[in-house]
């Protein structure tokens, strides 16, 4: 226990400079806005944003819940699909040759271009938002996973082969743990993008969600609310990010006995 709390304290101490830095940035922002008397619609001060946040907290909370639901569903789905795709492509070179190019191609399609089509095909329910989240998250997950699964130590692979391991066993005994760091890098990228995916989805067509709050605020020139929405989106994304980082710690104990 004393050991653990020590680590916790260290974490705290480590993040002091970051917090100080952030506070300085915010103060500077506040001062500049106040000093030059910049109008609210152009750029709100941090206090304005905080006020907007507080004043619309219930509304914001309701919208956040929608977005949270969409993001979580999409993210989980994207992980599942990413895993399936990665594993299938590493197990079967044929599948890789058939679908890897398609996977790449699918990602090059700009969301804002297909978004209207998506809506047209899928309607305005939750589905198209979940699909956009999946579209945004799937690719970094799948690519990082595939890259990670493929770069494995040849000697270890040979060892397992020499022990008569099946492809599948080689996959989960060697390739998979070896790919985990890369996989988590992909997950981190995906986590940061996930909420954005949902917001884009909502911007396409939705009746609730942070994207809706955002466009409505923007169209009624409430820049303070726009910033409040951005803050909410950021907090949400960071939540996923931190979650992933935490899971990473648990999933890679052999790296952490080194790092400690």
């Amino acid at each position, binding site marked *: 226990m004393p050991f653990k709390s020590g680590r916790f304290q260290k974490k705290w101490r480590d993040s002091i400079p970051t917090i100080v830095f952030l506070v300085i940035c915010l103060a500077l922002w506040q001062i500049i806005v106040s000093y030059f008397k910049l109008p609210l619609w152009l750029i709100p001060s941090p206090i304005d944003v905080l006020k907007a946040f507080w004043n619309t907290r219930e509304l914001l909370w309701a919208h956040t819940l929608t977005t949270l639901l969409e993001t979580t569903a999409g993210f989980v789905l994207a992980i599942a699909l990413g895993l399936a795709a990665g594993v299938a492509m590493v197990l079967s070179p044929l599948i890789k040759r058939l679908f890897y190019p398609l996977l790449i191609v699918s990602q090059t399609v700009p969301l804002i271009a297909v978004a209207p089509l998506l809506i047209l095909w899928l309607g305005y329910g939750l589905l198209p938002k979940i699909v956009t989240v999946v579209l945004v998250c799937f690719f970094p997950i799948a690519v990082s996973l595939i890259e990670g699964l493929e770069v494995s130590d040849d000697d270890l692979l040979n060892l397992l082969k020499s022990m008569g391991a099946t492809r599948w066993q080689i996959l989960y005994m060697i390739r998979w743990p070896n790919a985990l760091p890369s996989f988590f890098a992909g997950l981190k990228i995906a986590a940061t993008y996930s909420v954005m995916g949902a917001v884009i989805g909502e911007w396409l067509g939705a009746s609730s969600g942070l994207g809706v709050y955002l466009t409505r605020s923007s169209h009624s020139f409430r820049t303070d609310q726009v910033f409040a929405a951005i803050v909410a989106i950021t907090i949400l994304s960071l939540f996923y990010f931190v979650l992933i980082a935490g899971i990473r710690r648990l999933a890679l104990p052999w790296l952490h*006995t080194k790092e400690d």
Partner: protein
Amino acid sequence: MLILKDVSLSYQDGGKSVLDVLKNINLEVETGKFVSLIGPSGCGKSSICNLIAGVEVPAQGDIFLEGRSIKGVPGQVGYMPQKDLLLPWRTLLDNVALGSDIRREDKRQSREKARHWLDRFGLGKFAEHYPHQLSGGMRQRGALLRTFLFGQNTLILDEPFGALDALTRREMQEWLLNVWSQSRPTVVFITHDIEEAILLSDEVVVLSHSPARILDKIHVPFSRPREQDLLLSGGAINIKKHLLDLLNGKRNV
């Protein structure tokens, strides 16, 4: 019976020229025999092991185990590579039990067995350590134990005792002789220690410089069980001298 028949192997040397490693190697190891391979560094001993283990495929020739060709077929023999190759993400215990996991044996049982053997190897305290927390000799013993617990009738051991001190090495040799005499697996054993080869083997095969040819096969006639003292006997000293001469290139066959 393990048979290498006219086996040749070569590597593309950085895309430029071809590097011949093995040339027409013929080797027969009777089932239940203990055969050592010795030869200069880089001559192709590990390559022979890779071929038998099925992780590499010879350019020419064929390899048979009990009459069936095992050319390029992995999983037929227990193989301990020269590098220890413990999986960095598994604790020592889980590394040692790898073979059982591959065979999908009961986890609890296999761990119990592994722990028992780790204790016997003096590694019990380190069961939960990851490989990077172990010393070189500990890793090597772990790798040996993994190969042994994989439990095949044919074992290919590539310098299993290279990183051990004299005492531990002797203990391990005695352990190996002991388990070998109990279950009599076929063993192909690579070592740089001529005395070790004499002490353990039924036959010592001497390889030439690259591309490796077989210079000589020497029968070691001592009865078993053998003790370390045997190495001081005149017969052993003669064999040792013969082997040294072969390696030094002083003797032609």
